[in-house]
């Protein structure tokens, strides 16, 4: 191969058009579906749900007919009908609009919580697992203790300590997931550390930090991605649960868990719509992330979920 040809190659790649890109995506999509079968469709369904919810969270006003806080949208406590497809609550707010706007809250909290716990948990796990020693033992003991304890109960304690508020609840939720990432990453590092390619890296004289970054971390990341997605689903459930028991957000922010808690007192009067729809929304959102995570898991690493 001569030099001119070599130089040409990147130019060809850089000359892309939307059409070619689209063709490429469609190509890989159709190929992937053939390779992965049902798992692929599960993941696609998950992605569709998640994207839809993201759209809802970012542009709620394009979907919701009213504002979430508008207290004059119609009659009080009216069952679902044409104008209020999910009915109205006792403050004459539109339940549908509240569900739509509520997605923003829960997604924001769940995503930031998962992000925060991974940002803390992953490096801790990496270093603890790789370097071992006394610090590793202490950290593992702490993380294992927290992990084996019912997370929600700890989250309750933290949420009660921090008091209501978006940031506080995010912190409370994220605390309980740090061990998840720590244990996952540490466990992976422990096995990866024994892999031949890590030994090979030692044999070529690579410094520890390079080995950690170049050889170990990239191999952890795939599982982390999967767990991140599943973790968001979990964080969604936890956030909703905390709001449900009244430790979530103060009034004024539409929030599914809290709406269910409020609707609860209207349940014996047969007001089903105030609890049903926020609940379905939680299920759908959590399901989206679970399916996304599961699909990813099967595609990236079929052994992961079995553990």
């Amino acid at each position, binding site marked *: 191969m001569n030099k001119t040809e070599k130089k040409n190659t990147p130019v060809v790649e850089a000359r892309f058009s939307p059409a070619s890109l689209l063709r490429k995506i469609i190509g890989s999509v159709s190929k992937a579906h053939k390779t992965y079968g*049902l798992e692929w469709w599960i993941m696609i369904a998950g992605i569709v749900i998640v994207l839809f919810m993201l759209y809802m969270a970012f542009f709620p006003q394009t979907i919701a007919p009213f504002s979430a806080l508008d207290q004059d949208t119609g009659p009080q406590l009216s069952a679902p009908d044409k104008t209020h497809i999910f009915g109205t609550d006792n403050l004459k707010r539109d339940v549908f609009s509240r569900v739509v706007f509520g997605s923003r809250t829960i997604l924001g909290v769940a995503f930031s919580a998962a992000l925060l716990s991974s940002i803390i948990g992953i490096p801790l796990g990496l270093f603890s697992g790789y370097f071992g020693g006394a610090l590793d033992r202490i950290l593992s*003991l*702490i993380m*294992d*203790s*927290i992990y*084996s*304890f*019912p*997370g*929600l*109960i*700890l989250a*309750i*304690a*933290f949420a*009660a*300590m921090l*008091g209501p508020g978006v940031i506080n609840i995010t912190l409370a939720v994220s605390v309980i997931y740090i061990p998840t990432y720590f244990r996952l990453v540490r466990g992976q590092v422990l096995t990866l550390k024994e892999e031949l390619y890590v030994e090979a890296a030692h044999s070529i004289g690579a410094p520890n930090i390079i080995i950690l970054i170049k050889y170990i971390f990239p191999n952890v990341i795939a599982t982390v991605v999967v767990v991140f997605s599943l973790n968001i*689903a979990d964080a969604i*459930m936890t956030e*909703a*649960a905390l709001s*449900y*028991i009244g430790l979530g957000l103060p009034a004024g922010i539409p929030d599914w*868990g809290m709406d*269910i808690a409020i609707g*609860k007192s209207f*349940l*014996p009067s*047969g007001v*089903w719509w105030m*609890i*049903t729809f926020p*609940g379905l929304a*939680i*299920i759908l959102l*959590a*399901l989206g992330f*679970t*399916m996304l995570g*599961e699909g990813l898991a099967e595609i990236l690493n079929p052994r992961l*979920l*079995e553990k």
Partner: protein
Amino acid sequence: MKGLLRYAITRILLTIPMIFILLTVVFLVLRVMPGDPVSAMLGAHAPERVIEEKKEELGLNKPIIIQYFEYLGQLARFDLGESMVLKQKVTDPIKEKLPATIELTLWGMFFTLAIGVPLGAYAANKRRTGRDFGIRLYGNVAYCIPVYWMGLMMQLVFGVWLKWLPIAGRTSPRIMSSLFSNTGFYLIDTLLAGNLRAFGDVAVHLLLPSLTLGIVLSGVFVRLTRANMLDVLKSDFILAARARGVSEKLVVYKHGLKNAFIPILTMLGLQFAILLAGAVLTETTFSWPGMGRLLMERIYLRDYPTVQGVIVVFAIMVSVISLLVDLLYAAVDPRVKY
């Protein structure tokens, strides 16, 4: 047997650091929390002097580190202390509420397994059929249902609309509570008293909450059983057994399910923790007078010793269950010996 005993003791000793860590976390969390038991307890009119005296009496004026070590010292003597807001020993309400939570979680676990394992095994056997797909979908959805929402829906359908089942409490108001002073496990108490009507009443009250827990948690087990079954059915010894002419039924259930059950057992301990968390929410939804409700109430009241006591009990429960799971494990798997 000796090995077993040693193992059990070892395991129990190993839970000490876990309880210690959890307690430390909770201890600190509680002290950092705004509000203290004295202000939660006293009326708005209480003079400053009384507040100060009260704090002095409860030892709240000491430095946190001293309070911490005093508490640890107390624990080392197996003493959970006294409630700070109510004049009672911490163990009193726990003794009262623990049976309620255990009754709920055990039945929850029962329904979880009774629903999850057979469905999962069936789906694995009918792999890639419509039924398999349906069961998988059920598993995924069940996993994502908030347990309290499930509870509310059950209440709505069976309590409000159909009026078939009671939706709250452990008994009807008319059943005298003096019946339940024996063990605190109402099912057992009513049987001991020979009061079948009360037994029926208790069972009916238990049904919705434990079924709710069972359904929601069965999702995990459906997925787990299915995945494990598939894995086991792929393994060499299954093929080898088939090659020896062992019948399909034996292959799938004697070899397949038993082997698949081992990883499920491992998960059982962890799932129990989730079940406990679920129980807290279920207790709230079904007005179940258990540990979860106690915890919530006492957190609001800033009753430090009781909250800590409840956490200790939860931690012990988790440990006991995982010990039991391990022992069960040894019973099922000859490779594990203690």
